[in-house]
């Protein structure tokens, strides 16, 4: 099977500190990359470089063999990024937020009510996000995975403020995505249970 996401001799320097050097990643369809490491070891920096938000000091990120700086918007269309910030607006309702997410990406033909149902937020559909709890906001942020079509999911601590049940729910969602030929890159303090064959581990502290 051919590689979807690769990096070539990636290095990142922040405030004079070399966070990582000569990093070569190779992810095929159906694989999940777990980025581990201490605080400040460059996990978030790596994720942001993979999305194309940040630029590496040296090296490049390849999508299906082409550097992402050349692929441009067609790459962004393939990426769903859930960062530290939820990326949702307080003063919009849950439904309005999802419509915005769909408008900015490549929408999936899914009923938005159904999508809310999937992340257990159906009853809050017409509520302003400002009234939701932190965990509910996180679930809404993760709902972008359900309403838009993207092969590559990049997630920075997706399980923050989520309870056990929600975590299990999202893990099932991840497995399904991998089964459908998707790729996932994520950082997490929580361990996840997946078949070992699909999991690639990368520890930035070593």
């Amino acid at each position: 099977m051919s590689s979807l996401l690769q990096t070539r001799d990636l290095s990142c320097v922040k405030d004079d500190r070399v966070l990582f050097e000569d990093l070569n990643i190779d992810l095929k369809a159906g694989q999940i990359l777990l980025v581990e490491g201490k605080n400040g070891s460059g996990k978030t920096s790596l994720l942001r470089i993979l999305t194309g938000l940040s630029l590496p000091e040296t090296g490049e990120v390849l999508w299906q063999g082409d550097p992402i700086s050349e692929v441009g918007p067609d790459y962004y269309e393939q990426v769903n990024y859930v960062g530290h910030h939820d990326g949702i607006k307080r003063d919009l309702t849950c439904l309005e937020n999802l419509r915005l997410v769909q408008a900015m990406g490549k929408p999936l033909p899914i009923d938005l009510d159904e999508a809310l149902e999937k992340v257990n937020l159906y009853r809050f559909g017409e509520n302003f996000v400002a009234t939701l709890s932190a965990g509910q906001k996180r679930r809404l942020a993760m709902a972008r995975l359900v309403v838009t079509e993207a092969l590559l999911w990049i997630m920075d601590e997706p399980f923050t403020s989520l309870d056990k049940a929600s975590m299990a729910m999202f893990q099932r969602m991840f497995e399904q995505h991998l089964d459908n030929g998707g790729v996932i890159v994520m950082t997490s303090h929580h361990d996840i249970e997946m078949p070992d064959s699909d999991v690639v581990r990368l520890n930035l502290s070593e």
Partner: protein
Amino acid sequence: MKRLSLSQAFWFLLRRDLLLGFRNRSELANPLLFFVLVITLFPLAVGAEPNLLARISPGIIWVAALLASMLSLDAIFRSDFEDGTLEQMLLSAHPVPVLVLAKVTAHWLVTGLPLLMVAPMLAMMLGLDESAYGILLLTILLGTPVLSLIGSIGVALTIGLRKGGIILSLLVLPLYVPVLIFAASAVDVSSVGLDAGAQIKMLMAFLFLALSLSPVATAAALRMSMS
């Protein structure tokens, strides 16, 4: 399902920002209030002599409009920056300059356009000659979008800074000079009964130039700020 076309995305984002503006309408009144307040200060400072006030009113109104527009600039990207939607915007499948243009347009509609409505009242209070009202409104209509467009570059450059406010004014005010010169002059000459056609044409030229160039610069600056 296909992704939205470019114009659909533009309108969608514009509508969203207008909706957000409407939901936070109490904040919208602030630049407007500032505009009125600054103008109130002038008669108190230079004296209420009608001829003097009428003479300097085009300049006062424009300087105040410029400051009001500058003070509201930060709001273009601030909340999007803080809640992470700006990040998502940069990762969207649409070209960022178009999205920037939608946001700046929405921002101008909610902060620049209201200036247009109070300007005649302030002109009247300062005793500006009535024949110049039309031109005054026209200059605000053409000039304030240019201010928002140029300002968006400055905001994009300083959005990640903790103390960005004072730097922002240092970056943006010098670039406002041409608009100020031609807009104030247009009002000035028309208040003494002369033709302001040349000035208005210049302002139009500035507007087209700013419309075509500034979203690109803003998009580049946003990418830089978010990295």
